[in-house]
């Protein structure tokens, strides 16, 4: 019983990190139809900024996260305007190659600035211990992950479903030309959404620095997981990636616990089956790839 709760809990915590990092990718890919392999770069930068602020300047955990999120949001906005926007409508291959180029540049810069070794995060004391929940002792850090993730999911849902900004995004995902025809400034919308998506990734990277270690090869190491969440969840939605991220988090944790000698084999098999069953994802709003 305790084992089951622990696996469930660790799986959900892992899924929350995957969700925070990937949801922005899902929305921006659905909006712009851009195959962006470099999304992990922003999560990595979020992690580095958080760790650096905490370890070198002694800034507390949550203010560091906020600063990382803000800094990367601005960077994402600038990169979208300066580089990404030039490649909308180009072939899939060009977009894949361009985003791979961005990954390599980011890996090189991370290595030059922070060195090849992992940057350990020094969690504040109140996140280090264990807390009893329903008679099971669980690490406080992961409880925070889950709580934080839940708040972000709620907030995203409010923005996406209940605000004019969210309605504009949904409109542009459903039909880009029509959205533009009724007066939505789609290029500004793209840039703002891209910035917010990368900011969320930075938040996920910083918050999850103890789960997904912050190393220069971060964008290459975890790219598969982020892309899987998006591909399985479906483009242009915030609900699909949530289900997919929880599913992947739980399945990965459970399989690695139950059959450690099989490693990640089952997860990749599951992804295979899911993608063949629903090539456009569990929930898809996008028409571009339909």
């Amino acid at each position, binding site marked *: 019983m305790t084992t089951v709760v622990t696996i469930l809990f660790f799986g959900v915590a892992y899924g929350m990190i995957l969700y925070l990092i990937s949801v922005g990718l899902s929305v921006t*890919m659905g909006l712009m139809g851009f*195959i962006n392999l470099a999304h992990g770069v922003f999560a990595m930068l979020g992690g580095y900024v958080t760790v650096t602020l905490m370890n070198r300047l002694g800034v507390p955990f949550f203010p560091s996260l906020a600063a990382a999120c803000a800094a990367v949001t601005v960077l994402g906005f600038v990169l979208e305007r300066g*580089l990404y926007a*030039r*490649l909308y409508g*180009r072939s*899939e*291959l*060009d*977009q*894949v*190659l*361009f985003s*791979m*180029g*961005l*990954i*390599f*540049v*980011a*890996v*090189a*810069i991370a*290595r*030059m600035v922070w060195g090849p070794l992992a940057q350990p995060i020094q969690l504040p004391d109140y996140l280090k211990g264990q807390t009893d929940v329903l008679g099971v002792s669980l690490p406080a850090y992961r409880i925070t992950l889950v709580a934080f993730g839940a708040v972000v999911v709620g907030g995203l849902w409010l923005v996406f479903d209940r605000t004019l900004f969210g309605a504009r995004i949904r409109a542009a995902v459903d039909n880009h030309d029509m959205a533009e025809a009724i007066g939505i400034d789609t290029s500004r919308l793209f840039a703002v959404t891209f910035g917010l998506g990368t900011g969320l990734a930075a938040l996920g990277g910083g918050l999850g620095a103890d789960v997904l270690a912050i190393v*220069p090869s971060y964008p*290459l190491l975890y*790219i*598969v997981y982020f*892309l*899987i969440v*998006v*591909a399985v969840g479906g*483009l242009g939605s915030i609900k699909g990636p949530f289900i997919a991220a929880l599913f992947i988090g739980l399945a990965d944790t459970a399989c690695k616990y139950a059959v450690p*000698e*099989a*490693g*990640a*084999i089952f997860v*990749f*098999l599951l*992804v*295979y089956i899911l*993608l*063949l069953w629903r*090539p*456009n994802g569990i929930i898809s709003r996008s028409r571009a*790839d339909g």
Partner: protein
Amino acid sequence: MNPSSASSARVLVAALRASSGPLQAAPWLAAAAGFFLFPGYEPLATQIFVMILFAMSLDLLVGYAGIVTLGHAALFGCGAYTAGILALHGMTDPIATALCAMAAAAAVGLLSGSLMLKTKGLALLMLSLATTELLHEIANKAAFWTGGADGLQGISFGPVLGEFALDFRGRTAYVYSLAALFIVYLFLRALINSPFGWSLRGIRENDARMRALGCSVFSRRLAAYVIASALAGLAGALQAQTTQFVALDSLSFELSGNVLIMLILGGSGRLTGALIGVPVFMFAQDALAKQDPANWYLWQGLILIGLTLFAPGGILGICSRAWRALQRRGGP
């Protein structure tokens, strides 16, 4: 335009036209001459030949059939492990093991291709990536067969054709891999100029129209995928035979990415792109990664971004644009 520059352009155009036949033969003559001119560089040259073969097999998919895959290393690694495992179990004839490796890679290509080619766009990319990751994880965990993360060590092969030993100097490996590459090049050239090759280009340009013409799009794409898989498996087998080692990295996403970059750097969809892109990539990697691997990553990234933003078509794309500009200046 200045008349003297026009006439000199005309002379240049005529000279280049006259030499287009020898130009095609030039890389092969250079490779053959290299055997006598650069003793000591055989192992590096062999690596380059193997990667060219690998990149050419990818060109059939990316450049002709329009299938963008991030999982071509799956088939390379499959061939490499097949050859290595066979050698460990007593089957050491290089050509026989290479043929087995091709068959194994073709089988994997048939299975994965028949599943993933039913999708397109992001799902196809992801399935190709998932195939590599799946095989990588299997090879990593099945250490009993594959040596796990340490790779497959201590493999050795018999002499080629029962006559020429694959020795440490690498003279045999040089000729053996160059011969394999040349045969594959002739085969692919014939294939892309056949009706089948033209139907692949048609599918790349407009698959709906090809379907309307009565062409079986799925089975043609699958056939191309299986052929490319077998050739990638051959490249993997050659790698295992000439280096006597199979690394777990031969099934990595990074190798899939690198071979794609080598191909694009030279120029895809022209078969000769791999002949240019692979050596340029490998020499640049050698020169730039010497002091610091970060250095190489940075340049690789910048070159990729530059290529996609400013020079689609790679090095040969730049050359052919320059050629057309020259023709316009030089007149007919």
